[in-house]
């Protein structure tokens, strides 16, 4: 009897609690809606302006072309509240928004004047059509890093100082966006140049050390010396190749093998290497020379302590739609905080541009999900994991 009563009480209690919770939430929401402060009319106008400007920004950030100008002009005209608005580059009208497209021919003259003077101006737009609302034109220059890159032309029905002021300010804002676009572009170029730099880069130490090691075999073991020289030739040929940003994993592993053969000639038995490769992933395409720097890193860490031998394990395995390559050494390892700083580019790595550059390139090609994963600690060795999707649009080993 008491059991049933208790159960009923508990059930009622739970129900009441739930109902109260829901009621409370509803009340809170309604109160929030009523009490929402939308600001004064001036503030609201400011918000509106900022919002419109933010909509115009993304197309402009891609640079000044017909397509982006058209999209931006559509947003900028409400901002100025004019009948018509045109964006031009140094030679031609890129986009015309609003009425009176027949004025587009005049614009060329204005732009020529602005280009010559570098200053904005306000002129009477002579129009044969008495019904045409476009009477005055305000021309404001758009400037980039290398001077005037184009002009913003706003048309009004009468001469107005407000329109002149507003058009000048908007043109200045557009200029800033265009400069940012140029900045983006130069950053992309920088990364491309960096990749090119990494590709061409075999460490000079490596060349010197390899040749010295080979020289030491010339008398004692000429056959071995010849083999090593051929490995050296093959390795440099592969590394210096000029075409293509991508290579097959099989070719990359071959280059690593040659590299290790040369390193092994120098360090002898102190360098022990194990390879575990699933044959399924050999055809995977990945960025050119993105594994060799990691192996070089492992060799360096492993042999830093000059007394002990170094064991390096390179494994490539199949994981469904991805290939996973791990490079592991049992060397001196690294402080994770230092490594984090190095990868973030805050601190120059003592040895070449290895890890951060590979990380950057992988992220650039495959997105941030595919950066390097490094597990390390001081005196705990280091394990670097690279994940590569088997297919990614735009990644081809032989660009035509």
């Amino acid at each position, binding site marked *: 009897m008491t059991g049933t009563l208790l159960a009923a009480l508990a059930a009622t209690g739970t129900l009441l609690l739930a109902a109260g919770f829901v009621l409370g939430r509803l009340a809170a929401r309604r109160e929030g809606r009523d009490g929402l402060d939308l600001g004064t009319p001036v503030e609201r106008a400011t918000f509106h302006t900022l919002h419109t400007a933010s909509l115009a920004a993304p197309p402009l950030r891609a640079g000044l072309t017909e397509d982006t100008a058209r999209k931006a002009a559509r947003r900028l005209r409400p901002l100025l509240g004019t009948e018509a608005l045109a964006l031009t580059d140094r030679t031609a009208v890129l986009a015309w928004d609003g009425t009176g497209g027949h004025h587009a021919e005049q614009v060329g003259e204005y732009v020529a004047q602005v280009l010559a003077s570098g200053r904005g101006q306000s002129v009477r737009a002579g129009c044969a059509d008495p019904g045409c609302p476009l009477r005055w034109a305000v021309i404001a220059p758009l400037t980039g890093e290398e001077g005037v890159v184009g002009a913003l032309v706003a048309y009004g029905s009468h001469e107005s100082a407000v329109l002149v002021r507003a058009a000048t300010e908007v043109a200045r804002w557009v200029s800033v966006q265009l400069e940012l676009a140029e900045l983006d572009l130069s950053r992309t170029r920088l990364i491309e140049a960096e990749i090119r730099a990494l590709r061409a880069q075999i460490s000079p130490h490596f060349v010197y050390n390899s040749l010295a090691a080979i020289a030491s075999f010339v008398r004692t073991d000429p056959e071995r010396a010849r083999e090593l020289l051929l490995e050296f030739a093959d390795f440099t040929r592969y590394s210096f190749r000029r075409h293509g940003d991508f290579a097959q994993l099989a*070719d990359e592993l071959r280059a690593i093998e040659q590299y290790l053969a040369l390193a092994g000639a120098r360090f002898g038995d102190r360098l022990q290497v194990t390879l575990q490769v699933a044959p399924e992933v050999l*055809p995977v395409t990945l960025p050119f020379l993105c594994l060799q720097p990691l192996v070089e890193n492992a060799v360096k860490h492993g042999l830093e302590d000059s007394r002990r031998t170094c064991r390096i394990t390179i494994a490539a395995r199949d994981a469904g739609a991805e290939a996973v390559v791990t490079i592991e050494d049992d060397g001196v390892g690294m402080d994770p905080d230092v490594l984090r700083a190095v990868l973030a580019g805050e601190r120059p790595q003592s040895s070449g541009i290895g890890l951060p550059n590979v990380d950057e390139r992988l992220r650039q090609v495959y997105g941030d999900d595919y950066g390097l994963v490094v597990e390390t600690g001081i005196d705990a060795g280091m394990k670097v994991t690279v994940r590569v999707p088997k297919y990614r649009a735009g990644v081809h080993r032989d660009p035509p």
Partner: protein
Amino acid sequence: MNQTYAMAAVAAVVAATVLIGSLGLRISRTTSDFYVASRSVKPALNAAAISGEYLSAASFLGIAGLVLLQGPAMLWYPVGYTAGYLVLLVLVAAPLRRSGAYTLSDFAEARLESPYVRRLASLFVVGIGWLYLLPQLQGAGLTLEVLTGAPDWFGGLLVALVVTGAVAAGGMRSITFVQAFQYWLKLTALLLPALFLVTAWVADDAPRARFDAPAVFREHTSVRVDDTVRLALDAPLTVTVSGTVDSTTYDGRRTTLGEGLHRVEAGTTLGFPSGARVPERSPDPDDPLGWSGSLSGEPDGQRLYATYGLILATFLGTMGLPHVAVRFYTSPHGRAARRTTLVVLGLVGAFYLLPPVYGALGRIYAPELALTGDADAAVLVLPDRLVGGLAGELLGALLAGGAFAAFLSTASGLTMSVAGVLGQDVLPSRGVRHFRLATPLAMAVPLGLSVVATNVPVADAVGLAFAVSASSFCPLLVLGIWWRRLTPPGAVAGLLAGGGAALTAVMATRAGLAPDGWPHTLMAWPAVWSVPLGFLTMVGVSLATPRHVPPGTPATLARLHLPEGLIGRPHPEGAER
């Protein structure tokens, strides 16, 4: 049949698969004598792997069952399953490899540069994968039921658990070796007993299988009917009955059933005298899945149509099977992919010589299977019938092991493909963990369906997956590779019209919604109309939207068709060793 041997064989196959899959034949050496780059998968090994993954329950059990039921017309199945690779070899293999695509969705994206086409292709990959997984699970259930008397959902659940576990735990690490092993296992498991069976058959004065007349019982046979069936007799038949026939209960009495339809309740045992004709099972109007006899008791026109439907579906459907397409990625280049396909043709062709032998022998020695609806079990029961004794049991165990290899290999390949696509394109975000989540999902849906839908002959059910694949991916692949004016809207429209129509028809048939007669035949064998529909829509819409031709088309097509060495690889002079 002694269950111990069979169970041991099944357990051994499962253990070997999991072991090779997880530990793998790893290549592990030091650098001194080892050139890893030259160790790519050779065409012979890859071909064995493709064959191993391809030869499913439909091939191992289903074809023999259909030949037993319906005679030599069913030989189009093995012919079609093999000839699909010929089409693949000629039209698709090398360009598909050169495209760099791993899955069929990747190919759609690479060729048409559109995420929408990719999404749609992914949906079809998942659909075809599920349609194909379903009969694998049902076949596993049937096998275990015949072998051990376990309930028929148990085998499917076992396969589902093993495969999901192995795939989710880290993929099949060395899947090429596992699948190649499975191929040779399946071939051995079918070839060795076949030799014994044929020897026994010759020793029995080589009786002829008659396909033009009803089969006859060679000796006194009791048949237990597990599901209620309706028998159509065209002559009076004298049998002993314990159970209920035509709502009259008998207890082991001899009785004569007159001409016409008779309803035999579940659980009844019929004893047929030696020389009696095996009664035909008649399609039951209450049983929505009774459509499977479509090729037998129907007018000649429909029969011919159905045969063409089968031929089109199997010839053109092979290229769109998700688990076959991904295997080509393992080839180092286009030429190797082509050579691989050639070897596959040989291996698969050799394998398909065997199931018809079982079918014909089953018609002679186990005709009652046609009555009970377990024709797919013909392969499994024959050794016991013909050879008997310990040898028969051991051969039966070998066949059971082979059958399980068939379920495991095809199911794991399909599950990996479906889970990969689910994780990458269908579920909201990407990542390794999502692959683990996607695996159970990839398996759960067909497992659930396999419990709901029963009684479809395994080979027929696989034929449905082929029909959908032939109507969707065949146009996409063939036009994508050979026609430069294909556009993304065209591809989408073609996939939806051809593949969508085939899928709808197939689903409606499986759900029993198709009316009898011609509509039923049209919907059960959609390939004849849905493949041209897919092609025409794709071509028509592409021609209507010429502005949407992807900008990279010339470059893509050049990459698909030129041998790898020709593009962008100038050899520095004197660099050869």
